[in-house]
């Protein structure tokens, strides 16, 4: 087998294996979300299906598949059908730029040169931001096409929230970009080579926190789950969805959770790198997985602790606190990088 053919085969394997692995992971993350929701509230969570209830997600899937798929008569049907996919697909596309191991000429697998990333291209970070922006259309269109007041309000809120937080998110990411001197996620991980004190979460602590808060808003998770605020909007943009269409939104939310945890790990916590150089013998994908799991746990911990913010609080946090801080962080980072480095 010549090298280009081997590269193509590797690419196919990577492109198939990574979504499949993440989907399997998501099934268990949904289980752990429910289990940990119980634990954080002093309950035990699901216990019946499988050992410690671990097969709960599969039970959920079968339940959702067996449910009636209802489309409201007055709904905008093509858009109503399209919206779940718009929410679902961007999450998968971001996986392509997520490096899960070393990318260089010297890494080999089965005797062939192997890149531990699906697509190694220079503007990976822009792809991530762009896909995040597209995913909002899924929510907004779902809210619009349902022809339901609550859905529409949910969709509008999602749109407004995303506009507010995407700015802070973009500005905080620029700090990392300036430090690494690149938009390529592979180069960003290379910039964090060394022990854990070389990772960007120490110099970029403000930017990292802003990014983390903005991703919570992007993931529509409590305390920023305004688009589906149950107490006010029934289920927001999901009100009219049922069965597997609703399941796709739910699933996309968790795929997004995994992927965004991966992005946070890559930008601020050294990606696939070990916390100590001594531990480099453990392969990169395992370190990335560990970091993703810890971050997902942190997202769950935040979700089951903090109450939902009021809408005006959400907006003032976004515009009056996070955005100025993110710009300040960028200015300071740029000056320091230019003076020191």
């Amino acid at each position, binding site marked *: 087998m010549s090298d280009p053919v081997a590269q193509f085969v590797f690419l196919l394997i990577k492109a198939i294996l990574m979504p499949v692995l993440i989907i399997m992971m998501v099934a268990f993350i949904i289980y752990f979300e429910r289990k940990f929701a119980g634990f*954080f509230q002093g309950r035990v969570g699901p216990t019946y299906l499988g050992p410690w209830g671990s097969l709960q997600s599969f039970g959920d899937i079968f339940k959702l598949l067996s449910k009636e798929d209802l489309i409201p008569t007055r709904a905008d049907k093509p858009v109503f059908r399209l919206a779940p996919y718009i929410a679902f697909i961007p999450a998968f596309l971001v996986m392509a730029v997520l490096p899960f191991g070393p990318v260089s000429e010297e890494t080999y697998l089965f005797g062939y040169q192997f890149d531990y990333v699906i697509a190694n291209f220079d503007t990976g970070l822009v792809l991530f931001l762009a896909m995040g922006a597209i995913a909002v259309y899924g929510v907004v269109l779902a809210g619009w096409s349902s022809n339901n007041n609550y859905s529409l309000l949910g969709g509008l809120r999602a749109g407004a929230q995303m506009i507010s937080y995407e700015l802070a998110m973009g500005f905080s990411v620029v700090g990392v970009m300036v430090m690494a001197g690149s938009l390529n996620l592979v180069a960003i991980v290379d910039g964090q080579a060394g022990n854990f004190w070389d990772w960007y979460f120490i110099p970029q602590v403000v930017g990292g926190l802003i990014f983390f808060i903005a991703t919570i808003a992007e993931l529509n998770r409590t305390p920023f789950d305004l688009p589906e605020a149950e107490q006010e909007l029934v289920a927001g943009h999901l009100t009219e969805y049922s069965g597997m269409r609703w399941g796709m939104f739910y699933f996309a939310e968790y795929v997004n959770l995994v992927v965004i945890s991966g992005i946070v790990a890559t930008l601020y916590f050294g990606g696939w790198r070990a916390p100590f150089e001594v531990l480099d013998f453990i392969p990169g994908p395992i370190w990335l997985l560990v970091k993703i799991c810890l971050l997902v746990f942190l997202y769950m911990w935040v979700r*089951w602790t903090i109450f939902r913010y009021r809408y005006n609080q959400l907006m003032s946090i976004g515009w009056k606190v996070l955005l100025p801080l993110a710009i300040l962080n960028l200015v300071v980072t740029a000056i320091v990088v230019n003076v020191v480095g």
Partner: protein
Amino acid sequence: MGLKDVVKKGAFVDILRGMSVTGTYFVVDKVTVEYPKEKLETYPRFRGAQALLTDPETGDTKCVACMLCATVCPSQCISIVGEQTSEGRSHPAVFDLDLARCIFCGLCEEVCPEAAIVMTRRYELATFDKNDFFLDKTALIANQAYAHKELFSRPAGEGAGGAEAPRGAAPGVTPAPAPAPADGER
């Protein structure tokens, strides 16, 4: 908003404090009782479905058909028909209790001079058949299995109040009549 508040918010003091609370709940023992699999012990004075206690020597019920429980019952769910045994002791020929009407107030147990009718710890009373709520004498005697253990240690003839009261005498506190002769009808 003073400087103190800004620092407090910037350092996520309140949020971290909240997360420490939920984090504590994450590790401590859980409060859930997985009901069908595990059941809580009832308290010693729990008032479940009634039971008629029997005399361990004769095997006959302790009840002397005095009608006090039937009289005191606020929802009038007890109906008794008394009769004389061959030894001249009065006992209930019929003792019916309608659980569908019972309000589980426990007055029948309190008033009984013979400590014959007791509330038990049996609380799983849901059924598909309304007739299951109608407890006759056999069913009430069978309910003894659920009776609170310490009630068995009360010797026969000792009412709810009196410790030294002679058999069949009224308990000291309530001015209850002596064991009524069985007159059958209410």
